[in-house]
C-alpha cells in the first residue's frame, strides 16, 4: 500500500483533536485505515443510554469511494440488519468525495434518531415498525439495554 494520503492523516488528526459530541473514532494501531468507533445513542430515541460499537474502514479509493461502516453491537433498527450492515444513501450511491468520516458518523447518529422503515434493510424489523411502532420502539429499548448498555 502506498503511504497514507494526506487527507486521511488530516481527518484523523481532526477527529482526535476536536471529536464530534457523542462519537469517538480512533484508528487501529496496526492499520490507519481501520477505525474503532463508538456512537452514543441519541437523546429521545429508543437507543438513548446505549453505547454502540462500529467499525469503519477506508478503502483504497477513499475519498473517491465511500468508507465501509458496520455496527458491531447488535441493534434493533429497520435500516440496520443482523450483520450490522447499514442502509444509508451516502454510504452507497449518494457518496460524495466532499463528505468525511465525521459527516458519515453524524449521519449514522441521525439515522438512529430517525429510523426509516419505508426503505428497510432488516425486513422483519421494518414490518414490526410499521405495524406496531410502539412495540417496536420498546423492543429497540430492550435491545439497547441488553446489548449496548455502557459498562
Amino acid at each position, binding site marked *: 500500500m502506498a503511504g497514507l494520503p494526506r*487527507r486521511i492523516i488530516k*481527518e484523523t488528526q481532526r477527529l482526535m483533536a476536536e471529536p464530534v459530541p457523542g462519537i469517538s473514532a480512533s484508528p487501529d494501531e496496526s492499520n490507519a485505515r481501520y477505525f474503532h468507533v463508538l456512537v452514543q445513542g441519541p437523546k429521545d430515541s429508543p437507543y438513548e443510554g446505549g453505547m454502540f460499537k462500529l467499525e469503519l474502514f477506508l478503502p483504497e*479509493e477513499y*475519498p*473517491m469511494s465511500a468508507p465501509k461502516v458496520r455496527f458491531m453491537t447488535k441493534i434493533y433498527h429497520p435500516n440496520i440488519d443482523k450483520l450490522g450492515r447499514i442502509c444509508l444513501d451516502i454510504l452507497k450511491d449518494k457518496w*460524495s*468525495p*466532499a*463528505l468525511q468520516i465525521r459527516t458519515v458518523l453524524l449521519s449514522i447518529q441521525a439515522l438512529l434518531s430517525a429510523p426509516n422503515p419505508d426503505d428497510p434493510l432488516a425486513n422483519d424489523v421494518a414490518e414490526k415498525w410499521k405495524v406496531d411502532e410502539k412495540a417496536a420502539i420498546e423492543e429497540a429499548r430492550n435491545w439497547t439495554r441488553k446489548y449496548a448498555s455502557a459498562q
Partner: protein
Amino acid sequence: MANINKRYAISGLESTSRRYKEDNKMSVEMKSQDSDNDSEYDQSDDHMEDEDFDYASYYDNDTDDLDIDKPKKSDDPEYFEFKLLQVEDVERLLNEEEATAGGQHTCPVCFRSMPLRDFFSLVCGHLFCRECWDVFFQIQIQQGITTGIECMGNECKILAPEDFICNILSKPELRDKYTQLSFTDHVKCPKCHVCIEKNGGCNHMQCTKCKYNFCWMCLGDWKTHGSEYYECSRYKENPNIVNESAHAQAREALKKYLFYFERYENHSKSLQLEEQTLMKITTRIQEKVMNQTGTWIDWQYLLDAAALLRKCRYTLQYTYPYAYYMEKGARKQLFEYQQAQLEAEVENLSWKVERAEITDRGAPNAVKRFPRSIKQYWVTNSLQMVIDFLVYL
C-alpha cells in the same frame, strides 16, 4: 452634435436606472418628472446650440428620453436583478481575492493547500483541485459511468460536461474510453444503467457491476434466450397489417427491414470480434500451458471451437437476409425455428469459449461437447440454408 448628446443621454440613463434600484420611492418621484422632461427635450432638440445647452441641468433632469423605444425590462432576456455593492463590500471582496489569489486554497477532497489557479469548478462553484477531479473521473469511467457524472460536492446535482472531463482527464486511454462509451457503441445495463461495451462476439452479456444477464440485441433478460425457445431472432409481424393505412404499412416495412438488418449487422460485427477472441484464446492457452494447467493438446479444443464459432456466425449472419426475403408459411416457420436453435447454441458456445477455464481431462465437460452438437446443426441445417439462399438469389 446630436450624437454626443445621445451618448450623454445614454450614460445619464444608466445612472438613473441604477438609482432606481437603490431607492424605489425616489424613482417614483423621478417618473413623475419624466413626462415633462420628455416633451421639453423634444422641443429643445431641434434648435439646440452647444453654447446654450446646460449639460449639468440636462443630466439632472433628463431620465428616460429613450424610453419610447426601450422594451420593458422583463422582455429583455439578458436582464437580471442586481444589487449594487457598497464601498465596504467592494473593499472586502478585493481583500478576499487578494488573500486567496496570493495565498493558498485548501481542496476539500485531498486537504492539500494549493494556489487557486490549480482549482476547477463547474457552474455550481464547488472548487476542487485538478488532481482530485482527475482521480474522480478516472474512477467513474473505470466503473463504466460516463453519462451523468455529477459534481463532487455533497448533494450537488450539476453534471460535468464532456469538454470539462476531457480537459482534466490525464490518462489518454481513459479519455478514449470515455469518448468511446459516451458517443459510440455501447448499451446501458437495463438494471443499473452502467455503460457496457461489447468486447467479444457473444450476445449473452453480463453486467460487470450488477451481474445481470441480458441479450445484447433486445436488452431482455437472458433467461428467456437460453434453453428452450429463442425468440430474439424472430420478427413478429403485425397480423393485421393489411388493414392498416399505407403510412403504417410503410413504417412496418421499415421496421421489419431494420430488425433483420440489425441482426445481420450485429453478427458481422461479432464476427470481427471473434477474431479478437481467437487471439485472446491463443494467449490464454500459452499462459495456461506455462502455468502447467493442462497441456497444449488439452487446450486445442478451444481453437477448434473458435474456428467453428466463426463459421457459425458467418452462416447466421446470412440467415437474416434469407429470412427477410422468405415468404410466410410453414417453410419460413421451420427455417426460423432452426435459425433460433442455431442462434441459441452459438451464443451458448460463444459464452463458454470466452470463459473456458478448464480442460476436459477426466470429467465430462460441456464446452467440449458443444462443438459436436453444433457441428451437426451446422452441417445439416445451416449449410443447407446458405445454399438455399444463394440459389434463391
